[in-house]
């Protein structure tokens, strides 16, 4: 600790935030140089949860790596798996039945809402508001129940297969999903009153940080944070994969790019997810949900990339195949990695309590960063 012995020097001290700090949401460590309550420099220290996923990808067959993909961004596991099966199908030239693509869209969007709800609760918990997480988890619980019925798991889903999905959805799934859509639409009003219009919340999150489009380009910022700066960029719209081009939905954007706008983008995004699910249920095609693929799937030599819009931004898989049934190189680009990399720039001269809000806004999933 330093004491004020003069006014010409910068009296700073170092503070370790994490790796076991509740508001880093996982084993992330941030080394802070502080001046009183103000952050002078922040340096994220990564790697505590590094499992060398990319090497694992090179040591097993395409299909055997599938469960790993749901352990990257485990809050949006289905979306991560979506990208991986999409990549294999793209390279192998496998046509997926329309019904399977629709089921993927429905389940992915449910997963996205679940992810946003978890974020919403945890974000407010960081802020010191305990009540909202009770509401968001109540809603998220419904999604987990719906997905459990069809996928068999509640968090690290491995439901998609190369060529379709593991099992078909039934009437009960459709009915429960429609009930959930009705339910969540009714809840937005509660969230509006409880959070959005809450003066304490507004004062804590408004204008504490400014994300800009140029910053987004320099750091590769994607997802709701990018959209909060006013750039309408969503992989589901800009490079539509799966069946996304068949649905009518909007991409909500903000204007100034602060925590409040990122919050609003996420809330409005949940409404759009409901619209997509509703349309997909209404127009659900008949037919098979899985095409037969060879047990030993060999991909042609060459390279390919596949990007999906996760709840946090662009997740990209890039693979190099040498013609065998095991990847030669599999690169996983996680949105959280790039999103976190701008933290040192944005949090300079910020209050420590505001840094917690920025970290919350980034919506980090550490296993996806460390891989």
């Amino acid at each position: 600790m330093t004491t004020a012995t003069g006014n010409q020097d910068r009296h700073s001290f170092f503070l370790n935030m994490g790796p076991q700090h509740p508001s880093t949401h996982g084993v992330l460590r941030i080394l802070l140089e502080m001046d009183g309550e103000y952050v002078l420099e922040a340096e994220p220290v990564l790697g505590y949860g590094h499992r060398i996923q990319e090497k694992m990808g090179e040591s097993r067959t395409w299909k055997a790596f599938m469960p790993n993909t749901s352990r990257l961004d485990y809050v949006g596991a289905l979306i991560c798996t979506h990208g991986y099966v999409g990549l294999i199908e793209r390279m192998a030239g496998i046509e997926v039945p329309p019904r399977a693509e629709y089921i993927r869209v429905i389940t992915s969007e449910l997963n996205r809402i679940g992810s946003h709800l978890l974020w919403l609760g945890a974000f407010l918990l960081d802020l010191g508001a305990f009540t909202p997480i009770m509401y968001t988890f109540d809603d998220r619980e419904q999604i987990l129940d719906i997905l459990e019925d069809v996928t068999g798991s509640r968090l690290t889903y491995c439901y998609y297969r190369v060529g379709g999905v593991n099992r078909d959805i039934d009437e009960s799934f459709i009915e429960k999903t429609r009930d959930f859509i009705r339910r969540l639409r009714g809840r937005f009003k509660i969230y509006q009153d409880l959070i959005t219009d809450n003066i304490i919340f507004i004062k804590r999150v408004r204008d504490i940080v400014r994300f800009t489009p140029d910053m987004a380009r320099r750091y590769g910022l994607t997802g709701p944070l990018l959209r909060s700066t006013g750039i309408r960029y969503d992989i589901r719209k800009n490079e539509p994969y799966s069946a996304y081009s068949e649905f009518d939905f909007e991409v909500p954007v903000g204007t100034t790019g602060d925590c409040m706008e990122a919050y609003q983008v996420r809330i409005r995004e949940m409404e759009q997810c409901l619209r997509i699910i509703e349309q997909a249920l209404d127009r659900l095609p008949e037919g098979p949900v899985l095409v037969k693929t060879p047990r030993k799937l060999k991909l042609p030599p060459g390279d390919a990339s596949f990007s999906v819009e996760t709840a946090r931004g662009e997740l990209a898989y890039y693979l190099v195949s040498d013609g065998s049934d095991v990847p030669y190189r599999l690169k996983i680009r996680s949105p959280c990695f790039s999103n976190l990399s701008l933290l040192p720039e944005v949090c300079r001269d910020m209050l420590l309590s505001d840094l917690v809000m920025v970290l919350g806004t980034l919506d980090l999933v550490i296993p996806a960063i460390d891989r």
Partner: protein
Amino acid sequence: MDETDRLIDDLGGLPAAVNRVDYRRRGFHLEVLLNAEQVRKLAGMLRDREFYLSFVSAVHLLPAIEVLYQFASFALPCRIMARAAVTEGGTMPTISDMFHGANWHERETRDMFGVVFTGHPYLEPLLLPEEDADLKPLLKAEGELKTVDKISAQPKKDAAEPPAEEER
């Protein structure tokens, strides 16, 4: 002539080999093969055109490690995959002054492959612990190493024709 065509022309002048590829098969629009000396020029050009950096990584091949750069644009439907072989000393110029996000990606690439990015402000281990700084876990063992042509899309009859038709 649209914006992508103009970009292809400019990239070709780097000089670099620029191929328009089939997006449905590859997941990107342009493949750019260039030398290490041109990487900074490429980055500068894409920075001016408001591209963002998706990632930097590498792949271990014979005769050299190739560094991968993926760029995309918020405005244009144009995803670029660039590959450059590292020079014999194992170095590559950094682009982290133009694309600040490359800072971490380059550190990770150094962790995994040992590629040294010259001009990088802080090339310390990122994901690996300090004591494993020279582990280079993603380098291939001798027997697993493949040459560049083994991992390039073979110009098979069915694969080569559709893009050719598109050009006409």
